[in-house]
């Protein structure tokens, strides 16, 4: 008689092994190297230069020092007609 837990055990084991396999593969392929660069892959240069109205003066200076002179965003740049 097959126990009622067998399907769940096998399925979760398969999901776990799959995750472990992908993790090891990614590690060996160097996909966890240079995480700082990974964190910035979503940005284009102009993304970081856009002036953000909500930032404090100190935050604006910090942005300007890091990315250059601010540029004015379009209306709706931040998603929605605000």
């Amino acid at each position, binding site marked *: 008689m097959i126990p009622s837990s067998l399907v769940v055990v096998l399925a979760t084991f398969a999901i776990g092994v799959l995750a472990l396999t992908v993790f090891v593969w990614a590690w060996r392929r160097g996909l966890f190297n240079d995480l700082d660069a990974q964190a910035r*892959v979503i940005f284009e240069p102009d993304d970081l230069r856009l002036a*953000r109205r*909500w930032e404090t003066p100190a935050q604006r200076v910090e942005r300007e020092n890091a990315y250059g002179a601010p540029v004015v965003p379009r209306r709706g740049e931040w998603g929605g007609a605000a």
Partner: protein
Amino acid sequence: MIRTEATDAILAARGLVPADLEIRLRADASSRLPVLVCYGAAVVWLIIGSLFGELASLKLHWPDLLTRDSWLTFGRIRTAHLNTVNYGWGSLAMIGTSLWLMPRLVHSELRHARMAVVGAVLWNVGLVVGVTGILAGMSDGMEWLEMSRWLADPWLVVGGGMIGFSLFSTVAARRAEHLYVSVWYILSAFLWFPMLFVLGNWPTWTGVESAAVNWLFAHNVLGFWLTAVSVGIAYYFIPKVLGRPIYSYQLSILGFWTFAFFYALNGMHHLVGGPLPTWMITTSIVASVLMFIPVVATAINLHMTVVGRFGALRYSPTLRFVVLGAMGYTAVSLQGSFTALREVNRVTHFTHWTIAHSHVGVYGFVTFIMFGAMYYVIPRLVGHEWPSASLIRWHFGLVLSGIAIYVVALTWAGVAQGLALLDPRLPFEASVIRAHYGLIGRSLGGLLMTTGHFVFAWHVWVMFRGRRVAAARPPFHEARPILYTAPA
């Protein structure tokens, strides 16, 4: 389409090669049609699903409402609501956003875009067949898997497979050296979901085994599908709008992999007290508590990214929805871990608490993030801005107040119901009476949310209707060519 004479002239005058811009514009253009198809269908299903949900809610405290026609009875309407909002609204909104995000994330064009369009159409055909079947009384009888496994599900499997193929091909052909954490979340969801869907629909399960497989699927479809894609999307939009990288990228990687390793066993906590081996339930409770690790990692990470910049929520509807959605993720996950504990489950099991909890997840978390994503993506698809800030504010206010009333009322009703059920001195009827006002609150909250959905759907319709006109204008980002200069 990709570049205008104006942008070329400016860039040529400065001797610049707009490589980044070119890649991004090509990526956006490649995914435009499939995303429009997915978003359009998602909004239609949102309206249909909301009406089903509101009607089902009304029937709980107004039992004589629309009882003459079998297709309008609670058992069918409630099931139709669940399937339309999960596979129609939530899934299609997530698929659309994933199709838009992935080319951007991997700096490549969407591969097999036409296949993705056909896949989305097939997915919708399956949904129409499945939901019509449910209303006609054809249900497979397993929660979250009610659509006919022979008539409806094959359409979803083939359609979803085509969309998944398009996404995986895009990643395989990537130009970006790095894989951002959102790619991990989204790709793994497109791997986990079909596995679970086929497993859950396998026709051989019977009895207790069937219940175990049912909850293995039903809980994991929340985690490995809805949660995975939504968290991935939040990890994109929050840093993108704020213009600062995620607080700790290492923490985001830790969060993803612990999520991937711990989540699979969570579902069995729905069967506490059921005829399953105790070790199995206990293992599930332990796994549920272990979920604290990825949840807290994600919560800290997203919160710390926004901290000091909460003022941005005033200016960005996208951020407003996505940040609240991320808070919903933290709330529903921690609540879920606690609910899995036997002492809590003793009171909350078989009560309205569970419905409140699932709505914090599927609505307060997933739906809010989808709304935020769509507010960002749709203007970039149709090439012009949302026409009314006021409608966005109304939409936000209605859905936020609606879900707040809904969750508070139903959580309270669930606890009152659970305590009454546990009291041997009280008849069963007492548990129904104690939940009565909570159920009215549920309908009120649902009405507000549904009204908000109509506002949103109208706004989306106005955007889509203007598409033909807008196509003659420069696409959204091309209108600011001054930005495409060399970094200082």
